[in-house]
């Protein structure tokens, strides 16, 4: 083979020696002005090819040889497999395939992989984690968004009594505490915190035609706690942030997943699946309590159509596909 143009460095000084590199038998021979070196191919450390950047060959005696002609070197070292990554990166057809596969995998990972991983991790953690998670979240929101409720004493006592019975029947592993608050910003709403606190707003209580409807909402919120949606949502957003950090190659943004839990909860990025899970749980619980799920459906319908839910952060804005949910709740085979 015709020798390749190369540069030899002895690793002791920064002097560059132009040489001719010839591969023959299984030896590499470097010849230049005052240089005649010979090495076994097996003793060389040939760097993997990256596009067309000059290839570095580490020599066993501490020197190195740089070859600019990558194609020539690949041909000369034909016995050794050309780099897998280089082959993918250099063929337009494969690049296009990589692009499409990336989009496909990326979507699949975010849509299915991350929720699955979050679920597995969440349920392998003890319930104590949920209780501790965002222990301060409810109190923080109390400071910023909530005010004292404007309910009559009797109503308050009656509701508390009824809710207490429901919670006992639910047998959720986390101890549940129900709070009533008033919030102009949140409108008619009910929020379940992983720590076991469930907050009902005045407006939600007023929107209900009867207590059974509120029991329906409570059952749904208990479903969120039972299925540990708060913890799973936090895990999902953390894993997504981590994935983004890895892909964009910015290791320092890993700290970004110490995200504020209250914000996550109030934003209520609960996915459709979380909602369906909570609704399923509610269905089961309501059946056990002999309360018709129709009541919950009625309340949802009223909230959607009646303009009760004006606020952007109202109950329905955080629970997508109301019509679908109503259908599921009232389906009788």
């Amino acid at each position, binding site marked *: 083979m015709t020798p390749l143009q190369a540069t030899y460095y*002895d690793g002791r000084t920064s002097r560059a020696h132009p040489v001719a590199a010839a591969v023959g038998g299984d030896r590499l021979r470097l010849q230049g002005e005052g240089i005649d070196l010979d090495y076994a191919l097996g003793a060389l450390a040939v760097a993997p090819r990256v596009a067309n950047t000059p290839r570095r060959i580490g020599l066993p005696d501490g020197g190195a040889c740089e070859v600019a002609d990558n194609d020539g070197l690949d041909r000369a070292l034909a016995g050794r497999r050309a780099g897998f990554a280089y082959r993918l990166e250099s063929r337009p057809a494969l690049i296009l395939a990589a692009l499409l596969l990336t989009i496909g995998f990326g979507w699949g990972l975010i849509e299915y992989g991350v929720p699955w991983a979050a679920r597995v991790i969440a349920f392998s953690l003890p319930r104590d984690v949920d209780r501790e998670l965002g222990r301060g979240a409810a109190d923080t929101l109390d400071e910023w968004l909530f005010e004292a409720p404007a309910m009559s004493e009797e109503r308050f006592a009656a509701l508390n009594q009824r809710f207490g019975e429901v919670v006992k029947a639910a047998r959720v592993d986390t101890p549940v505490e129900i709070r009533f608050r008033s919030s102009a910003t949140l409108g008619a709403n009910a929020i379940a915190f992983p720590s076991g606190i469930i907050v009902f707003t005045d407006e939600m209580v007023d929107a209900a035609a009867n207590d059974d409807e509120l029991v329906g909402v409570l059952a749904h919120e208990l479903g969120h706690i039972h299925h540990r949606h708060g913890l799973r949502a936090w895990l999902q957003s953390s894993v997504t942030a981590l994935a983004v950090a890895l892909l964009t190659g910015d290791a320092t943004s890993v700290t970004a997943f110490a995200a504020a839990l209250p914000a996550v909860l109030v934003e209520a990025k609960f996915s459709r699946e979380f909602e369906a899970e909570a609704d399923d749980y509610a269905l089961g619980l309501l059946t056990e309590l002999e309360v018709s799920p129709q009541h919950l459906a009625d309340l949802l319908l009223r909230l959607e159509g009646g303009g009760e839910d004006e606020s952007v952060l109202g109950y329905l804005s955080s629970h997508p596909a109301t019509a679908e949910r109503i259908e599921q709740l009232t389906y009788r085979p």
Partner: protein
Amino acid sequence: MTLEGSIGEVATARRPIGRPWPASVPARPFTFSGRAPEYFGIWIVNILLTIVTLGIYSAWAKVRTKQYFYGNTRLDGTPLHYLARPLTILKGRIVVLVAFGAWAAISQIYPEFDLLMLFLVLPAVTPWIVVRALRFTTRNTSWRHLRFDFAGSSRKAFGVYVLLWAAAILTLGLLHPYGVYRRTRYRVENLRYGETPFTFDAAARAFNRAYLVAAAIILASLLAAAVPVVVSGAAPALLENTAEETSWRLAGTDAILFLLAVLLLVIGVALAFVHVGVAVANLTWNHTRIGDLRFRLELSFPRMLWIRLSNLAAIALSLGLMIPWARVRVARYQVSRLQLIGAGALDRFLAGEVQRQGATGAEMGEALELDLGL
């Protein structure tokens, strides 16, 4: 002062502001030969394989990306090489991941842990991490098969990274430019090419000036942003409440004016950031010497601003597909404005002690190098 004369005079003379080096002093340009289509292939395969391997390939991806940019950066016809081994980087990343994961998990349960980490553990550990990261990057960079090195001590790193950071916070930012100057000096003066150290001869005032200009830009944008706020009459409300609460109460034209104010502020901050980036980069390189050679970097603020803004637009419009193009563009501009000034020969540098000892170069001393993307 005359710039003609012996090498020694050239070495110590400062270039008079605004006047170019005379033609008699040789200038060797740096060149960048990377191209966007080439890098796109590397970039997309990196992402695909990283996803498929759930992140493990990210170490190989980093090595290939760095080698692409290093290998296409040449001085006097010779490129840089990146010598890090992917497995070492992978180990480092796993360590970082576990550490951060533990921190996040523990601090969700015990919020007090955050304080412990922030005020006790982090200040103690940061200097050590910084030194190891700098050593890792420098020792894995070579030109003409001589490796660079970093000789800084953790003790010094504590001073410039922890103490000066604290000082900057305590003085509400007034000492930040000085901190940047000291950290730059620490990094440059402890940098070695082979066994030859670099020297840094900038003064702190130049850094102060750069940040002063940035502060002026932000001040100007604050004043500009105040105009729509006053016009909308929302000023009293703004002064009483937080910005968030205010935005929920505004409606119609008031909201538009408020958004305009925020936009002006964002523009001001962006301009300030780009200015600082350009000024500090120029300052750093223009005052760095090695032996009797010095560097010259002439990034232009308007050009850099244009590049950053048009990159942003291109990336947004292409949903991210133009990221490789943007990166190559920035690298090409920055490298093209860099030169090595001086008549000294480039072949008389000697390898450092660590390289002399390690024949194959496989083990460079530290068993577990940490690479943190710093």
